[in-house]
């Protein structure tokens, strides 16, 4: 008789513990999913929304990555699109000029191997993968100069591969854009 009571008591304890652990695991999963959603919405991480392809061998023949179309373009809605390519062992354009306090879209790709795309002093850090277009919405708070090193080992000349990003005043950029349709700060 006594053993019967012990048994049902043990069963109740086991059920309670199991329910608590199950609840805890569900909460952990929920927090993780919520965290991913939160940082996604607030763009703390910027997973690319689209997968776009571009043939690395023919970038120079046609499409948006031909030499004359690279650089910063002022859009009708006031935003700026910057197009660039990474190749062994330089970025083209070598110096990118963008306005501060303006929505900017970086569109870049690689003409040969995987390169890195990192702008020092910002959270911009992604990869340029041959065959795919990297599309990144960003915003610079204040004018200033940043270096843009390739942060992905891309070959024996990798250490020499970096570009510059010049963030300038919004009005100054608008003046420049009035004179030329694709802007760079390559001297």
């Amino acid at each position, binding site marked *: 008789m006594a053993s019967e009571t012990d048994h049902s008591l043990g*069963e109740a304890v086991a059920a309670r513990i*199991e329910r608590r652990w*199950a609840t805890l695991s*569900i909460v952990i*999963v*929920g927090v993780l*999913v919520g965290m*991913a*959603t939160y940082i*996604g*919405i607030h763009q703390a991480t910027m997973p690319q*929304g*689209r*997968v*776009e*392809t*571009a043939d690395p*061998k*023919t*970038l*120079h*023949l*046609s*499409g*948006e*990555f*031909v*030499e*004359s*179309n*690279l650089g910063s373009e002022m859009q009708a809605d006031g935003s700026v699109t910057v197009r660039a*390519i990474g*190749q*062994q*062992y*330089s*970025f*083209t*354009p*070598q110096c990118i000029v963008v306005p501060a306090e303006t*929505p900017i*879209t970086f569109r870049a790709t690689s*003409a*040969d191997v995987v390169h890195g795309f990192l702008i020092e002093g910002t959270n911009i850090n992604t990869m340029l993968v041959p065959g*795919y*277009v990297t599309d990144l*919405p960003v915003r610079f708070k204040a004018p200033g100069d940043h270096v843009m090193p390739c942060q992905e080992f891309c*070959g*024996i*000349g*990798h*250490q*020499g*591969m*970096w*570009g510059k990003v010049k963030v300038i005043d919004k009005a100054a950029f608008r003046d420049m854009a009035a004179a030329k*349709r*694709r802007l760079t700060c*390559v*001297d």
Partner: protein
Amino acid sequence: MSDQPLFSLRNPWFGASVGITAAIAVLSAVAGLIWLPLAQPNLKLAGVWDAICSAAGVPRAAVQETGIKPDFKTSNVVMTSEMLTKVNQVSIGRGATLAQRCAICHGPQGVSDAHSPNLAGQFAAVTYKELNDFKTGARVSVVMSPFAAAMSDQDMKDVAAYYAYLPRVPSNNLDTGRPAPVIVVTGAPMRNIAPCGSCHGDVDNKAGSPWLGGQSAVYIKAQLEAFASGARRNDISQQMRNIARQMTADEIDQVAHYYEAQP
């Protein structure tokens, strides 16, 4: 308890755990595949199905916008590292005949003292690319342009194969004891200059980069200056202009004389 089947909907534990897991999966999928993509206005999604496809990573070709076309001729050669690397005896034979008209400047054995490039032993892809660029007008030379204009694509491949087949001959200034300049070995990382050797053969070879050993210093210098000033623009996507622009006159001089002295 023990006689009750574990995987059964009548088991409340089973029902609850499967139900909750499925609910989390569905909620996460809705958040990741629909809510998050739609929360990014710059994606310009056409609807829920478009959002799901793009978030799931269905690839699509980049939109061919009407960008700015170049106002000068750019190289139209599609460069790959396998390009013209297969030895073809017929092609070499045809090339030998065709190359007779090149001999005045480039020498009967592909080597000359005329400050025109030495072609013996040059990578076939390199010779082919330059001929093609002369033909299309991406590279301009009073002497070369008319020659190239008269050549067919196969002619250019044959001539290139022939010169690649000829053995390299060192220049009269051969001096293998000459120390390599810093710019050749380590480049100038602070000025975005990779070592010359990382593309031009000493350390590694990038497709389309010529072998420079034994090349006339006068010629190398003239080309680097032309790249730096933008007078020569047939390098694909500015790969050489980016480098030459950053080089000092002194460095240009050093590499020109260094490579001339190499085999």
